[in-house]
């Protein structure tokens, strides 16, 4: 099995970015992951590097020549640079936790770049797949087919009462976490996003900003996922998540409709300011760039920015993140200040065709 050429990834667009104009502008991407552990073995945080390496090899042998996981390649964390880890994280192929792991941990990615198996993160296996837009049924079919194929070779820790047994009891049962990245910039602009997120939490869903746990919903980007994994089957969990997503996007669509209809000064002002800052800034942080690009994304959908497409902005949202930025500008050692300068320059080039 070949090693994934991580440093080449930033030259290509992440496959989960949708470029078609018909895409729902309020739903960026969806993801489902299944946490699985090998029967009778200690969980990864209780294993040493050599023991983890054996599990990694076992998974490698299982995934090789598996029709459900075509064209696999691998990344071993022990052999991956800091910048490589960042790139994988920014493309949603590994978690933040995996980015901190060493020898014996790693990820397998299929040829589509949409489906991956993390080995020795919090659990022995984290099988996950993602897609642009909201297509949880397709994701479930894909991830459960792969999981089932792996289960033919690797016995998973499971009991009839508690289901799949995981290192952290927050994942026990189905081991499934389904999440949807939403763009709710209209709700954010009208100061209703906090209330809406609290409502989702009361429905038993977890909400986070675009940068994961503890992050703010910069630019109106919000991740919503199921909190509970035990007591309900997968289809019920997915149905509830879909219902919540529909309610949130309905609320956002209502606000956007109003904004488009009224062409309010508030919207034009926000979009104009975002445009001005991105056009003339010479140093900008990832968070601030997300904030303004999110506003432009809303402006593009509300027909205020005919020359800018949402797909173009989505690509930029990945390109400006630290790992991709350092790779594409060939500044592997760029510190925070240098990155902020490079980021501002990249945005001016991509959005305003500055040489």
């Amino acid at each position, binding site marked *: 099995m070949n090693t994934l050429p991580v440093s080449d990834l930033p030259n290509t667009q992440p496959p989960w970015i949708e470029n078609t104009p018909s895409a729902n502008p309020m739903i960026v991407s969806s993801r489902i992951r299944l946490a699985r552990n090998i029967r009778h*073995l200690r969980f990864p945080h209780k294993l040493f590097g050599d023991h983890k390496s054996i599990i990694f090899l076992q998974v490698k042998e299982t995934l090789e020549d598996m029709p459900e996981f075509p064209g696999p390649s691998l990344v071993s964390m022990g052999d991956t640079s800091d910048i490589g880890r960042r790139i994988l994280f920014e493309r949603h192929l590994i978690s933040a936790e995996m980015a901190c792991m060493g020898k014996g941990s790693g990820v397998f990615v299929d040829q589509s770049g949409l489906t991956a198996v993390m080995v020795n993160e919090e659990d022995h296996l984290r099988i996950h797949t993602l897609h642009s837009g909201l297509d949880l049924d397709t994701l*479930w079919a894909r991830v459960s087919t792969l999981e089932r194929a792996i289960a033919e070779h690797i*016995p998973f820790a499971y009991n009839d009462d508690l289901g799949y047994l995981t290192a952290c009891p927050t994942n026990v049962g189905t081991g499934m976490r389904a999440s949807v990245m939403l763009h709710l910039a209209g709700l954010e602009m009208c100061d209703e996003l906090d209330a809406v997120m609290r409502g989702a939490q009361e429905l038993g869903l977890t909400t986070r900003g675009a940068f994961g746990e503890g992050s703010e919903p910069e630019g109106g980007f919000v991740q919503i996922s199921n909190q509970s994994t035990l007591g309900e089957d997968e289809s019920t969990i*997915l149905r509830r998540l879909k219902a919540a997503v529909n309610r949130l996007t309905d609320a956002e669509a209502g606000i956007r409709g109003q904004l488009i209809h009224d062409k309010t000064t508030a919207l034009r002002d926000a979009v104009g300011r975002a445009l001005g800052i991105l056009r003339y800034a010479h140093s900008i942080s990832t968070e601030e760039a997300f904030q303004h690009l999110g506003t432009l994304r809303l402006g593009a959908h509300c027909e205020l920015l005919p020359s800018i497409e949402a797909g173009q902005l989505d690509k930029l949202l990945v390109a400006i993140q630290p790992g991709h930025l350092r790779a594409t500008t060939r500044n592997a050692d760029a510190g925070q200040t240098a990155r902020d300068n490079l980021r501002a320059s990249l945005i001016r080039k991509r959005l305003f065709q500055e040489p």
Partner: protein
Amino acid sequence: MLCQICQKNPATLHIEEVVGSTKTTLHLCSDCAKTTQTDDHAGDNNLKLAALAYQLASDKLKALHGEAGALPNVPHQICKKCSTTLAEYHNTGRLGCPECYDSFREHMQPILEHMHRGTSHSGTAPPDAKQATKPPAPNADTADAATQNGTPEHPPQPPPEPASETIARLRKQLDQAVKNENYEQAAKLRDRLRALTSADTPPKP
């Protein structure tokens, strides 16, 4: 509600600590509140309300006590399989091995009730589980091979090959070695298996 320490008497003392948005509660019976700490923590015998409240209020103290396996509301229990203690779980949020769920069953029950919408699994099961697999897919038409599962121990085997018996035997030994956490043996068996299986497979272009 039962006392969180003895799990026998009704809890009559309820202490609640709120730090920011995090609420910690402790429910004790009067006996445990007056005199006892669990099992072998003789140093904590004089569990007084003031001391208890102080312990709850101080994260630093809680961390110290946790390392010693003596959080006031955590019984001293060890998983027989992996030696993880309940205190370790409370410090890290992680159990040590799948068997920890059995070892700490009583303690985990209320925690799971709090975390999840139910306490028993109703989703899909692995192919070799005893119970029949429930239909897993939200859309029955796109249901994967899981629904075809008829609980055989293994998927249908291809016709016997010359080395198949050896491979099967080695696989069994490998499973056993992994089960016993005998990793050196497992690595050797894996290498032998790999040599055998690659000899049977035509080389890749």
